[in-house]
């Protein structure tokens, strides 16, 4: 491979994994923006999304096949069901905790994560499930770089989801209410906004996006397992912080930045790929020290 090919290929790699990070990071950021909760269970929601889609695909594939049609149907079903799961979790575990010390809520989130993770482990008996689809490796070639149609479709799908979310957030009344709640809950109450309902909706949307990402990951990587949400959860959280937690465009950008950083990390001269996470986390720390609110986060009043 020529240097150009390597760079191009790594760009594509970074973009693809970055778009998954972005989708998951959005959920972190939305929830954080609105109730200041680091939802540690979000990675497990992603995992649940993959599993629900897996089951759904098995249900629909006799009719729709295991090609794109079936996958899209399974994904939509998964997004809906996992969205509801997100709302359920919010209602049962987080809402009663409003007003409790923030660390306790954080621990509750870890508890939710444990429950989700271990439930799926019990159900699957800890086994890896092969997410079998009919998608092949066909694609286009640029030099020695091979880009499969699946990759192209996934990036496009992510883009569509993010554009839709952006539209939802900026154009619909619900989206505007979400942003408003993040700014001032009491003022929202005085506008006649049912704050609890909007918070639930936020969990629904965030969880749906994670479910979409989980489904896509299952389709793309071909294997799902109960701890698949852990690493991506950490990475997406990182991405959300890089972008400026609470900021929607920030989460999108943060995901892509992290994806590209990691891809670059594997290709670094002199040090091996085993250092790529050190590289990514190191840059994150530096970023936070020098720009504590992330790329797109708002700066607060300067205080000495």
């Amino acid at each position: 491979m020529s240097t150009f090919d390597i760079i191009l290929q790594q760009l594509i790699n970074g973009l693809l994994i970055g778009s998954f990070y972005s989708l998951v990071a959005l959920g972190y950021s939305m929830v954080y923006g609105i109730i200041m909760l680091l939802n540690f269970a979000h990675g497990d929601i992603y995992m649940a999304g993959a599993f629900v889609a897996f089951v759904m695909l098995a249900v629909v594939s006799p009719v729709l096949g295991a090609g794109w049609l079936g996958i899209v149907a399974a994904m939509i079903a998964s997004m809906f069901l996992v969205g509801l799961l997100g709302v359920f979790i919010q209602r049962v575990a987080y809402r009663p905790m409003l007003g409790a010390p923030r660390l306790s809520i954080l621990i509750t989130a870890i508890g939710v994560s444990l429950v989700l993770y271990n439930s799926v482990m019990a159900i699957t008996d800890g086994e890896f499930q092969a997410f079998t689809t009919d998608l092949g490796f066909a694609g286009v070639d640029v030099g020695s770089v091979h880009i499969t149609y699946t990759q192209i479709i996934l990036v496009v799908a992510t883009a569509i989801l993010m554009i839709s979310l952006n539209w939802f957030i900026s154009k619909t009344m619900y989206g505007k209410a979400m942003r408003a709640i993040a700014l001032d809950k009491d003022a929202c109450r005085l506008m006649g906004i049912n704050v609890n309902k909007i918070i639930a909706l936020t969990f629904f949307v965030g969880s749906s996006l994670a479910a979409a990402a989980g489904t896509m990951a299952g389709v793309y990587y071909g294997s799902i397992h109960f701890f698949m949400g852990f690493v991506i959860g950490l990475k997406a959280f990182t991405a959300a912080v890089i972008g400026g937690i609470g900021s929607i465009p920030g989460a999108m950008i943060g995901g892509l930045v992290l994806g590209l950083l990691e891809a670059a990390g594997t290709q670094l001269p002199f040090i091996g790929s085993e250092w790529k996470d050190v590289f990514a986390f190191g840059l994150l720390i530096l970023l936070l020290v020098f720009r504590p609110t992330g790329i797109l986060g708002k700066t607060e009043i300067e205080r000495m």
Partner: protein
Amino acid sequence: MKKVFLLALVIGLMSLAVFGCGNQPPASDDQQSGENDQAEEQTGEQASFDGELKIGIMVPTTGSEATYGKDMENAIQIAVDEINAEGGILGKKVVTTTGDAACDPQMATAAASKLVSSDVTAVVGGYCSGATLPTLSIYGDANVPLVIPAANSTKLIPNNPGNAFMINGTGAHQAQKATALFERLGAEKIAIVHQGDGYSEDLAKITNDVWEEDGHEVVAFEVVNKGEQDFSSLVTNVRSKSPDLLYWTAYYADGGMLIKQLRQGGYEGEIVVGDGSNSPKLMEIAGNAAEGVYVTSNPLVEYLPAAKKFMEDYKARFNNDPGPYSALSYDGLYLLADAIERAGSTDKEAIIKALAETEGLEGLAGKVSFTEDNVLAESNFVVLQAKGGSWTNAE
């Protein structure tokens, strides 16, 4: 209101739990004296037994490696029942008790202490090398004979107090087998990828050294993080160094994904995987991409003529195929039985001595003798190849 929701939560989870239980292999009373200490209360139904002989099993029964651990436990149970049907060891009924190592060093030391303090005569177990390592000294201090059927990191050897016996081929054995295969396949430049855990790193490093000593080149020595799904940038990195062959030394789950992504990313060289990856799941996960992949494997039950009956028994009883370490675990118990019979007593010192003197004991997986280091004298590794969705013998 709060309480109602909590109740709903608890009920929901409990139903989940029940559902989860339903999916687990049936664990009926007759087959498993199990980890619960009821085993001790069980008195021999057959009057012919002269007391009990307690054997400890140390495998992961929870955590990400639980599947393997349960396969091992099941296989040992078959051996126990067979032996008991034949009249036990030294006329004593064999009972077992399981300690969960969970593939975690801290859990494993607790499990080992638990086994030691419940007065087991000997232990069969050790799946994850990393978790087995710190338990060696616990067994060593109590002088309990330990037969290790799966863990095979060479790091175990220098830390063996003398009471542990490894019946799985070690990393060194496997590296020999693997490099021989690489040469046979005409490879010159190879890439090695491991998963950052003790076992796969050990195998990767030994293979690396052997290959370079043989005058060849390792162009890439890489690691992936456990739990990550995306290896695309690694694939690109490997491709840019254009190796003739890639050796994956870790487990099937990530191996399957790596193979898929290697082929997807346009890698065209040979792919060889280590014994942690010899699972049919690898092919399921990788799909067509797995075609032609080689595996350096410890002897799989399917290819052992001697194991035909075991295979059938296992399937009949557990409604499942035996796992990759089932045969060795089964052998492990017979090895112990043999040693105890030869020692003529349950004296631990005598059993250890007898174990060390084992000479050519026929097991499912081949003949067992030990070197001075208590390591299997003769490698029992085989090479298999994925063809049409299943492993076939490639030798």
